[in-house]
Each structure stands twice: as C-alpha cells, then as structure tokens.
C-alpha cells in the first residue's frame, strides 16, 4: 500500500491537467469482520494512536471508527497552540515528546501540518506568577525543555502590540518557549488519516459505536451502526464522550465534561508573531496564517455537552485581551464556537489499562489536547501494542486517582488553553 507523494512538483504536474489526477487522501472502506486493534475515535489522538501502532509497532490490521467525520471533535475546534513548558515531570515528558514530533510531522506524514515554532510567551503579571514561571524554567531545563525567563523589554520586542505597562497588571516578565508555536489543526488529523490509510488501515466514518462486547472480562469486539466488528484490542480515544463509551464497557471514569470556547477576529495583516498567554487575566491569543486573531476562553462552570459555551467567558477574555493588546479594540469577532473537553480531577490526562482486559483508554486531556496529539498517540500506541504503559504513559494510569498520585499543573497554568 503506498500513496502518491505530495510535493511542489506533483502540484505543478497536476496543474497541467486541472488537478484531475489527485487520489483520495484516505480511503472509505466498509468494516472488516475483525481487526487486531480497533481505535474508537478518529480525532487527532485516535488517528495518531493508529499511525504509531503501524509505524512503530508494525500493527497494521487496525480500524479507526468514527461517529461523525474525522477530526471533527476537539481536533478541529482548538486554538492550535503547541507548547511543552509544563511543570511536572510526567506532563513535561509527554508534551515535549509531542512537540518534538510536531517538529518533523509534515515531513513524516508528507502532509504540511504547518507546524510553526513562532514562540510562546506566558506573561507574569503578579509576583506569584513571576515566581511560578521562574520555577518552571528551572524545572524545564532539568527536563530537557528549552524555556527561558525574559524581561518585559524582551516581551515588548517580541510583541510590539503588547501593552507591558498595565495599568492594572504590568508585565513583570515572561516564560518564553522559543520552539513553541502553532500548527494547522485540521491538517494534523488529515495527515495522520492519510498516513493510516496508506498503511492499509481502515478509517470508518459515520459509524457510531453502540456497544462493547466482552467475554470473560476480555474485549472481543464492538457493536456499531455498521454492524458488529470483532477485535483483539480496543483503544478508546473519544475526548468529550469518554464516559459514555466506558459505560458501554461497564466501567466508570473520573471525568467531567464541559464546554470550552474559542473565537477568531476578522483577518488582518500580520500583527503578532508569537503566541501570548496572559493567565492572570484569563486570555490568550495568536494569529493564524490566514490573518485571524485566534482567542481562547475559559471552560464553563458546569458540566454540559452543548458545544456552545456561556457568553460571559467571551466578555471576560476579550476584555483581558483588549487590555493586553489595546489595538484590537476596533477589530471584530468573526466567529465563536465551543468544544467539549474531558476534565479529570488533576487536569492531567488518562492513558491507561482499564478494568476490562485489552481495553485501553486515552482521555482527559482537558484543555491541552491538541498540543499533545503526537505524543499522546505515540504513548498510547506503545500501551496498546505492549499491553503495558511505557515511560511516557506510566504516570498517567487510572490507578493514580486511587493512590493520590496526582499530576497537578494548576500552579504552572491557571487558565484553560
């Protein structure tokens, strides 16, 4: 199974014949009766899991089952930020793995996911934040992650439209990750899907899981709207609906689901190169290649599945950003949307074995899902392939809630993103 490579030459060649020769980016097969592994959820995490199962572990008899359209959940709804400046060792490890995979992802997938290490700033606007970020820099340096503490003047040089002088919360400095940035979110899902399909894996869209079949405490297959499909191993990778799927398999997850919002401005010429997060005032912003300012808000204060979100978050965050970037006041909000995020008690993900043998779960990425996709897929593939977590996933098991072994990042980032 191969795929035709994408390149500038291929585009030029196709241009001569009005692009009539392009083949499907991924195939649209009917499900087979049995797979070695079924991944439920064709979002970024599910597709990346399948991709690395094939690429790293040589397991290619794999189906990725998707209720709607691939990449249609949080993979297609986030603010595309990539960073790994986490405080706790396990988070730093998996997010840095993800970030480093993003560096080469376009070349690896032969699909331009537009990873753009444009740099990422977390502003310190209180003594408490300043100390927290300085601590993070020391932690990151020991974790092998390049971050630095920069002065307000350097902040201003990097982001001239940023008001560092308050009046309410003057910028005291910032945690800067030069190799943090953004990528094109849809392309990540599409690129992985194309890669999976090229390895002979089946991506089955518009196929909802209606039941999980087990025998003697082991998974044997799933029921779907396209019929029963057998499997030896099952990976649940369905952010937003993890609890629902787990319930079909007969276990519960320590997850709450709530809406998280984002919005964009109308497109303007380049105004801000760097991703800026102002956590004290609850706002963060970057600019897409298309020219829109991309802005993220907070999670709703109550559990829901609406994919809409509450308006007051829009006001709160927009105020914070107008305060931080006074020139944006006359720009306009173009579009606002919401996604459903899985939240765990410690706001860190779950990559784990489950009470049912050969069912594995990957969920709980909360507001940090997009940036982790390649690392999450990598670690999940290892877990599924070997049946035991590797070092990246080791600390993220369900057992930690029983032991109290939390991985709490709230000190490093008090805001959703």
């Amino acid at each position, binding site marked *: 199974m191969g795929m035709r490579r994408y*390149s*500038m030459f291929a*585009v030029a060649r196709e241009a001569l014949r*009005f692009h*009539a020769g*392009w083949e499907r980016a*991924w195939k649209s097969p009917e499900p087979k009766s049995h797979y070695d592994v079924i991944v439920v959820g064709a979002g970024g995490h599910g597709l990346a899991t399948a991709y690395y199962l094939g690429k790293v572990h040589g397991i290619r008899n794999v189906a990725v089952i998707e209720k709607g*359209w691939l*990449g249609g959940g949080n993979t297609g709804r986030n603010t595309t930020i990539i960073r790994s400046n986490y405080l706790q060792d396990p988070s*730093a490890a998996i997010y840095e793995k993800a970030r480093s995979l993003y560096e080469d992802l*376009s070349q690896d997938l032969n*699909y*331009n996911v*537009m990873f753009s290490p444009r740099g990422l700033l977390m502003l310190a606007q*209180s*003594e*408490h934040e300043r*100390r927290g970020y300085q601590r993070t*820099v*020391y*932690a990151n340096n*020991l974790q092998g992650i390049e971050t630095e503490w920069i002065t307000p003047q350097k902040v201003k040089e990097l982001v001239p439209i940023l008001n560092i002088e308050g*009046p*309410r*919360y003057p910028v005291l400095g910032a945690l800067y990750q030069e190799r943090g940035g953004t990528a*094109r979110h849809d392309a990540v899902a*599409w690129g992985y899907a194309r890669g999976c399909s090229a390895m002979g894996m089946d991506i089955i869209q518009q196929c909802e899981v209606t039941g999980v079949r087990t025998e003697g405490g082991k998974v044997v297959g799933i029921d779907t709207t396209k019929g029963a499909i057998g499997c030896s191993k099952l990976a649940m990778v369905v952010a937003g609906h993890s609890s629902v799927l787990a319930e079909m398999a007969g276990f519960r997850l320590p997850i709450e689901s709530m809406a998280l919002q984002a919005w964009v401005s*109308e*497109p*303007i*010429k*380049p105004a801000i190169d760097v991703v800026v997060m102002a956590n004290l005032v609850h706002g963060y912003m970057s*600019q897409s*290649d298309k*020219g829109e300012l991309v802005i993220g808000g907070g999670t709703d204060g109550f559990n829901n599945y609406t994919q809409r979100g*509450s*308006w007051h978050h829009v*006001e709160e965050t*927009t*105020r914070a*950003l*107008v*305060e931080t970037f006074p020139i*944006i*006041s*006359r*720009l306009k*909000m*173009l*579009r*606002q949307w919401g996604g459903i995020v899985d939240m765990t008690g*410690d706001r860190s993900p779950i990559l784990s074995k489950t009470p049912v043998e050969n069912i594995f779960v990957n969920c709980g990425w909360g507001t940090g899902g997009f940036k982790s996709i390649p690392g999450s897929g990598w670690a999940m593939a290892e877990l599924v392939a070997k049946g035991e977590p590797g*070092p990246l996933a080791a600390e993220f098991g369900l057992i*930690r809630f029983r*032991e*109290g072994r*939390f991985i*709490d990042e*709230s*000190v490093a980032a008090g805001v959703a993103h």
Partner: protein
Amino acid sequence: MSLRLTKGGRLIDRSKPLGFRFNGQPMHGFAGDTLASALLGAGQAMVGRSFKYHRPRGIVASGVEEPNALLGLGTGARFEPDQRATTTELFEGATTTSQNHWPSLKFDVGAINDKLYRLFPAGFYYKTFMFPRFAWKHVFEPIVRQSAGLGEVPKDADVDRYEQAYGYCDVLVAGGGVAGLAAALEAGRKGQRVIVLEQTPHWGGRAMVDGGQIDGHDAADWVAAALAELKAMANVSLRNRTMVSGVFDHGYVIGYQRVGDAEPGSDKPRHRLWRIRAGQIVVASGAIERPISFAGNDLPGVMLAGAVRDYIMNWAVAPGQRLVVVTNNDDAYRTALAALDAGLEVAGVVDAREAASGPLIDAVKARGVRVYEGHGIAKVKGRAEVTGVELCRQAGEGTVVMELACDAVAMSGGWSPAVHLWSHCGGKLFWDEAAVMFRPDHARPPTGADGEAMARIVGAADGKLRLCEIMEEFGLGAVADEESAIEPVWLMPARAPDALRFKAFLDYQNDVKVSDVQLAAREGYESVEHTKRYTTLGMATDQGKLSNINGLAILSDALGRPIPATGTTTFRPPYTPISFGAITGEARGELFQPLRRTPIQGWHAARGAHWEPVGQWRRPYCYPRSGEAHGDAVKREILTTREKVGMLDASTLGKIVVKGPDAGRFLDMLYTNLMSTLPVGKCRYGLMCNENGFLMDDGVVVRLSEDSWLCHTTSGGADRIHGWMEDWLQCEWWDWKVYTANLTEQFAQVAVVGPKARAVLEKLGGMDVSKEALPFMTYVEGELGGFRARVFRISFSGELSYEIAVPTSEGLAFWEAVAEAGAEFGITPYGTEALHVMRAEKGFIMIGDETDGTVIPQDLGLGWAISKKKEDYLGKRAQQRSYMTDPDRWKLVGLETLDGSVLPDGVYAVDAGHNANGQRNVQGRVTSTYFSPTLGKGIAMGLVRRGPDRMGEVLDFPGDNGAIHKARIVDPCFYDKEGEKANV
C-alpha cells in the same frame, strides 16, 4: 461604470451632500448613503482585491452578506480594517482605503497569483512547502502570512467609548421587516413586553423596495402605520441599527447597536452591546440571495439582482448603463423592471429555465426586453470591469451561442432563508426540494429549559418569499405578483468544463471556486465540514452567507448524493462580526477590573508606596524613601520592626463570619483542626484542605461567641473560600444551620508588630493589652484609643504583635492614630515584602509559596494542626491514600547556602541520574528564598525528599548559566526558635 441617477433614491437626501475620500481621492455622496452606494454613485466599481489570487473585486451585495467591499475606515486611533461598505453609513469626512493590494488597487503585484491560479488550487499548501524543514517557518509561512490577511493592522489604541446594557422582554423580534413588524404588533397588542431589533437604519425590509399590498394598503404605507402604532405602545421598544448577534441558551440574546459609528468624535458611545433575556424570540431575519456560479462571476459589475434593485431604488445608483440579468427564478425580473423604470437599458434576461411564465416575465417582455430561456452565461468578459457576457445553452458545456455587450450583470440563483439565529441554539432545518432552500423545521425548534420552543421563525427567514405567504401567518391579506417555480442551477452551464469551473467563484473573498469544491470531494474531503476547512469555503468574513448553499450543492453533486445528505455547516454567532470594543464595554483601562481599596490606600499612595497586585487589591510592597532602592526599603522596614515597631495594613485579609447552631460542626469539617472546642475569646491557626487533601488556605480562626466564629483567610483567597463554604452549605450540607458572611471589606485591620507594639497600644490607651489581660492567641473587643476595636494577639512575624480590626469607615483615622502614637517609638509602615521575609525567618509557610496544589499539611510539618480526635474533615480520606503517606514525600525544611548567598527562587535540588524519560532526577526544590536582614544572610525554605530526616545534608541546586548553588538542609525556623519574642 456606475453613476448616480438624477431621480429617485428613497433613502438619500440630495440636499445634504457628504464629502469622503477613497484611497485619497475626494468623492461625494448624500446623507442616507452607505459607503457602498456612495462609492458606486461616484463611479468606483472596483473596491478591493481578493484573498488568494488578488483578483479585482467590486460590490456584490447591498447588505450584511457582502464579501468583497471591505475597507479600511478612519485614521489613527480611529482606524478600523475590514469595514463592510454595504452596512456602513456614509458620514462627512469619511476616509476609506481599499485592502489587500500592493502597491495600488489598480496595479497589484499579488495579482501574479491569478495568472498562476492553476498552481494554487484548494489545499495546495498542504501538499507543498515541506522541504527543507526550516523553510516553512522562515520562508514560506512569512510569505503566506503577508499575502493573506485582509485589513491593515491598527496602530493606536482605540479612543472611542463602548457601552453595555441589559434588556428584558416577553418577546424579542429579530428583524424589522414586514414579518417582524407584524409579529411585534401581534405581541404588543396583547400587552406583552416587546423589543424589536433591526440591523439597518430602516424599517420595512425588502417590501420597501419590492412593493406589494398588505391589508389593502401599499406595503410602504402599511409599514409606516405599523411603526406608528408600535411607537405609541409603552410596552414596545424599537431599536434600529441593532443587530441580533447571537442567540444563546435560555433565551439569552446578544444585540449589537451601532450608536455613534457615523459620528466619529461625538460624545456618543460607538457601539452598545445589549444582553437581553427574552421569553420568546421571533426570528424575522429575512432571506439572502444566492449568486450563480459561472465563469467570471466575480468581476466588478457582477452583482446580486436584488442588490442592483436596492441600489437603483434606495440610493438612485445605477450599477451600469446596460444590464444583463441572469436568473433561475422570477424575482430577478423585478430588477429588470426597476432598471427599465430608472431609464437604464436591459440587454437581455438570461433565464436558465427552459420555460417560465408569469406576470413579471410578461411585463419584462412587454417592455421589449429579450428573454433567453434555457440559456446561461458561459463567461463574463472584461478584465477589471464587465464588458459583456457570452451566452450558452444552460444544459450544455458552454459553447458560446452569442455575446451580449453590457457593463453590469445582475444575477439571482434564488434566495436562502437567513436561518442563522434559529440555528445558533439548536434549531434544525430541512431541505425543501421545490423551493430549493434549507428551511427551518418547526418540529425541531431551539428549546428552552422547559423543553418547549424558545424561538419562532417568520417571514422570508421561514422560507416564505412572497408577501401573501408571509402575511397570511398574521391573518393579514396581501397581494403580490404570481411567480413561476424556481429551478435549481448550481453551475452554469450545467456541464461546464474545467476551464470554466476554475473561474466560477463560490466564495468571493476566499477565492474558492467550483473546481476547488470538486477537488475536495475527489480527494475524500466528503463531509461538508471537511470541504469547508479544506477549501476555506464559507470561512471568510461573510461566513458563507453567499457561498455556503451553492458550495454544498456542488459538493453533493460531486459526491452523487442529495443535498440534505450533505447538510450544512454549523451556524455560529455572531451573525455578522461585532467589535471587540463592544464586547469589552466600559471594562478597560482603570475600569478593566474593579480595584479594591482599603480605607488606608490613599495614605499609602501619599507615602510613595510601591504596589503589588494581590487579587484585585493593590498592596504596598514597600515604602521607599526618596532615592531608596526597593531592596533597601524592605531591609529598613524589617530591621525597624524587629528592633522597634512596625505597622502593616492587613485590611485585605479575608474575614468571614460563620454563625449558627451547626457552625462548630461545619468548621470542624472545613478545617483540619478542631474548631468547635475553641473557647470563646481564643484564636487558633487553622488549615483548610480540598477533597484531595491538598492545603488550600490558612488563617487564624477566632471564636467570637458561643455560636459565631471569625475565620481569617489569605488576602487572595477570601472570595474563593467564601464560595467554597457556600458550595458545601448549599449543595451538600443544606440542612445544617449555618450562615456565613464575608466581612472582608467591613473591617480595616492594622497589625502593630515589634518589641514596642504594646507600648504603642498603651499610648493609644483605653484597653488593657498586657500579657495577662490579653495573652498570646486571644482576642478582646473594646475601645482602643477611642476606636471600637477587636484586638487579636496573633503574630505572623514572630514578634510581639497585635492585629486590630476597626470598622472600615474608621480605618484611616485609626491607622493615623497608630502612626502618631508610634512616632516616639520609631514606628514604620511596612509592606508585603517585609511581611514575607519576616514570616520566612520564622519558618511560617505561605499559601501559594510553600503550597501549589500538590502539598498536604503533613508535608509542611503541620501535623500538629490536624486533629486526631475528629472522625472526618475535608481531605482526611484523601490524605490516607498510599502516595500521601509515602515516607519519600518531599517535606518542608530550611535551606542555607554554604556561603550565605541567596538561593534563586524556584530552583530544584538535583539527584543522581535521569529518569526513564531522560529527565534529570530531582529530590527537592526551593519554595521561598530571601535575604534576611535580621540574620545578614540568605535563607530559604524548601521541600525535600525525606527532608526533616536529612538535616545537615548539602544539596546541589543548578541555577542560571550553569551555576550550581550548594545549600544545607536546616530547620525551617531561622529566628527565635523558642517563640519567646511573640509571647511576651
């Protein structure tokens, strides 16, 4: 070439000419013009360049759906990019510039992309720009970013003002056309509270242009009478220039009012954002006309037929002298008639339908205009303006059968109901095959909390395009011309070859063509959401108002499936873009967030306090004297306090009273300590943990009386802890008889600290503050220096210390009295930094420094504050989990560098080797670090694995630039270990 007609124009006032500039060129229009009508009237057909190919673009529409006519408006601090010319009212002196070209609108280097269009189909960037790796960031992406993006970046901070307002009503009507007005009358006459919002400055909607009769009157007269009646009703409020931006759950509606947009520099707010809670929402938002996809349909001079009619009749502007009308429905014939009535030439009507008849068609034919039935436009001729059209058979492949010379094309592909507001909150649609449109499904409306419909949709928004249909719902008779059926035409001609499809535009602003959607389908981007995202169809500033239906019809055709199987993308707020200024309202600058002030704030400011934000408070960090560095000021404040006496404004400290028969039981659950047994008049240091056992707040609890306790919290934590208490009381222990009151702002609190503290208070007089009368950790209420005061013998510094609470209104007077009484003892005010250093010298923990959401009291040597007698408290079970009782946990210790230097803040103690993820192993970290002026050396607190068992060990802390700081583990209390100074 367009120009102003000598007669007509119902919305303009020719007696009031208005001057404006476009790209520096002076032009003029009239009061009542939009920027778009004024530009067209001044003969400016080309107004911008498209996003990707930089093609010349003109005005297409007359309303919110306009994708092309986006201008830079204003200058300096009032510059705004991406201003939609069709919905912006002209004002005297308006300065406008076209966008997305270099060096000029006429000659644009970027137009090279148009020549190379075949190299840039949908999604070409996903297939290219990958090698070499660094080139994306350093070469390709900067080019993409620079050539994308439409408007210029504003340079200055906005100087205008914005407002926000609330509204409440039984019925909110979105749209002031005839359907909206009829619905408002219906509700208003019933006495319901009604708010009608209309996005334009004008009432009556399309009926004002299209005519017809309602209830026996001309539509315009009926509208005037309806408005008069509504205005006379006290229960009805009418607001024009106010768009419903979004409909949210539970009848929450956001309205966007343009108040002072056309009067820059006036004292009016520029925009006003309405937050309205409506019992019911009536969506009367009308319909939007669809373009037709034919080659060259994006040339300046090709416009929607309805828009052409609007410009002629509303603003007396002729988009051209010689028009061709192209259509698949009867409505466009009204445009032909309007053009003829205005004295313009109609070169022909190209009707894709093989046979259509009706009074409108007959009327056009009767005026001598030829109708080309079963024909389509193969291609529009011209470079930057229309010079003619090539006709072909609609059913064919575009073989040109004849040419018509013309300078404008009016196109109509039918109308789509504006269902956005219906859909924002979950209303569903169905595909009406005969009417060729997605219509609201009344069986699946957006629902409210009761599960009943919270919205009703009427008029054209409901898919009722004819006046008689619209008014029937309201029991009103109406007369409109008969019309024959529309026929779907998604591509013109139906079998257009590649060369034509590559020039047939769907999304004008984003340059998405028919061929792009077909390419997406071919490559497997089959979901409408995939196609949208792959091609950027519908992602422009009009959010697909013109392009979406046409695009998904092309997609459906390409996939060989019916249109309803493709479905629509999600309709999201806002209906059209709204300013960040309006969303921000007045909360900017000094009003960005409330600034909480203690009554002593002014005094601090007058003494030159250097501020530190603490929550929404600002506290003095220190009080530098003239020329004194902050560090020196802190040092002086500490030494003076330790040697003599200092005073601190502690008013920001949280003060929550907990009262009731179950108050003791409640506090026993909330705190790790036993509070129910605290004797009246005594103080106890308490710890609060969350359910996971982590320490979240601390403070001194005082028993005021048999049934009431005063809980002190951290300054930043007061509101959160009060909310936490209420959460438990309201959600879990709702049957417990407890009340809480947050009195933080009701009391000013002053700490008087140092060996001379008692002398200062004695000088104030009126109260026995001796060791015997007021021992350590007790409290008394009475009069001190003539002030009603609660005096607490508590200490956060290790010194003899009193904290005195007085009513806020007397806070400043009391503070000044203390300062005066203390003068002879050398009293100094001290700030938060001195407070921090002194507590660290004593080894007292600070929430947020020693804690970070992962630390339990047992880690901090605070086991003594955890009651063993209680069955339960919040966090107890969690603290028994295996990881919490692990002897290897990091625990609180003191740290001293070997050379007396100050450890950097936040550094980690490394251990040997690396973990499985290649990260350096660590065994502890610094949580607080200061220079101690008292001891003359650096001191630090930290958490270290098994720390208390490792006294005297030396750890390595890597710092900046490869430096390794060596520090010895010591007792965390550096000063007065026996606590003799506080307890004197």
